[in-house]
């Protein structure tokens, strides 16, 4: 579904971000991407839809090469949502905002897709409100709903849980369960391991240009060196559970 073939990339002021990165992500997987800030997590997302082109190697998304195809075409394969809702909310009603992606990708009946996505994130009552009449947490959910409305096979989110309080986290987890069942490939860049470890199929650690770990979350608990080396600590809760006779990572819906 998504293939990175020995990608090397460096920004203008010569900090090397990636060096011969090579990995594959199957359709229907949920990948949690962690690593120290500045390790290129956001750049990784920008490589997915050609906003950033690699210096060498190629990224294939849904069989399309990001070198040959424009971002507008790749946006139909993978919908990338960035961290700050204020950088994308433009419309004067919640529904118009959610309708934007399906409309610009020429999907059939975009309004229904938008309403469906808003229902998934419990925003359907506020469909006619102005996005800035909602709380910041609900505006964040709106950006997630706008991406889901585009109905792309793959979805990539940069820090989807930031600004969300507990009720919105539960809505997010519920929505991701539904997306998982409908076979979507989901990539999540986040530092909130406590929230996403239970629901991801594999964890990718990006640390100074390389993928130092790419395996199931249980394997992460057994071998915590790559995590510790990347400066990210396993949440206190997961480290304590074994002492109380519990599995390190609770199964979803715990």
């Amino acid at each position: 579904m998504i293939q990175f073939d020995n990608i090397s990339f460096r920004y203008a002021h010569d900090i090397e971000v990636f060096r011969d990165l090579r990995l594959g992500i199957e359709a229907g997987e949920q990948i949690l991407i962690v690593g120290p800030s500045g390790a290129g997590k956001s750049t990784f997302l920008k490589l997915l839809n050609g906003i950033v082109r690699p210096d060498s190697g190629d990224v294939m998304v849904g069989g399309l090469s990001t070198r040959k195809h424009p971002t507008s075409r790749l946006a139909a394969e993978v919908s990338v949502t960035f961290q700050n809702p204020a950088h994308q909310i433009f419309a004067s009603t919640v529904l118009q905002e959610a309708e934007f992606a399906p409309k610009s990708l020429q999907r059939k009946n975009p309004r229904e897709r938008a309403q469906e996505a808003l229902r998934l994130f419990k925003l359907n009552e506020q469909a006619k409100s102005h996005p800035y009449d909602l709380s910041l947490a609900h505006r964040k959910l709106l950006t997630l709903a706008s991406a889901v409305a585009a109905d792309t096979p793959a979805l990539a989110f940069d820090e989807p849980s930031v600004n969300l309080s507990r009720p919105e986290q539960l809505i997010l987890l519920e929505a991701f369960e539904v997306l998982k069942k409908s076979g979507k490939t989901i990539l999540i860049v986040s530092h909130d391991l406590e929230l996403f470890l239970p629901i991801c199929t594999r964890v990718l650690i990006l640390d100074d240009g390389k993928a130092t770990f790419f395996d199931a979350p249980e394997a992460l608990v057994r071998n915590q060196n790559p995590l510790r080396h990347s400066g990210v600590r396993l949440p206190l809760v997961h480290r304590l559970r074994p002492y109380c006779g519990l599995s390190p990572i609770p199964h979803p819906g715990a």
Partner: protein
Amino acid sequence: MRFDVGEKLSLTLFLLLLSIVLPWHLNGVLFLLLVLFRYAFRPFRPVSDASRRRSSALASYLTIVVLLMTIVNGLLIKEGTLWPLPGGFTMSSEGVTFGLRTGMRLLVIAMSLLLFFGSTPIPRLAQFLQSVGWPVQMVMTLLLTLHFIDTVPDRVSLIFTAQEARGAPVRANILARTKAFFLILSPLLLSGIVESIDRSMALELRGFHGGAKLSFRGDETSRGRMTMVSMLFLILSILCIVWIILRWLLQ
């Protein structure tokens, strides 16, 4: 001789008006004098290498444009003595002097503004304006503008990336690109309004009501006093204005 902001400001005003009064060849001499000022005279040396790069790039760009203007005007305008050129074109003396007059004036204007802004960081200018009686809110606005000038362009590119990733037609036909223009300006304005509301609360929460004056780093030079030098330049500026009006009336 320490030039403080007030003196440099009145000198710049005088130079701008002088460029309108002088004929083109004296303007040319004045331009060369100003270039010499920039390198020889300490208070006028550019403060940061960014302003140095900017001013030398602009100076060379303008010199080329002046030459271009002179030639184009010479060719197009038909008054005055016409010197035949190969290929049936005529170069009119009236056109050439017209091009040179405008070009030299533009060079002097550009150079005097570059001298002032290149060697005076905006905070020093704000400090001077406050000491000569500008309302504190206006001074705060000028300083806050500097902050937004640093942050707005980055936010524009972040919004550009976020909207393009969602399928915004940033590279399609002109109609679609105009729609994309709105798709980028709308989040920029909304985030600007929200930031303005938060910033106004933050200022009030730390006791800012436009009552007390703002303090600046190292309150040394500009006391806002009207020195002899700045008085001299202001008088000269008024003379220039009178000259311009008289010449316009008698024309």
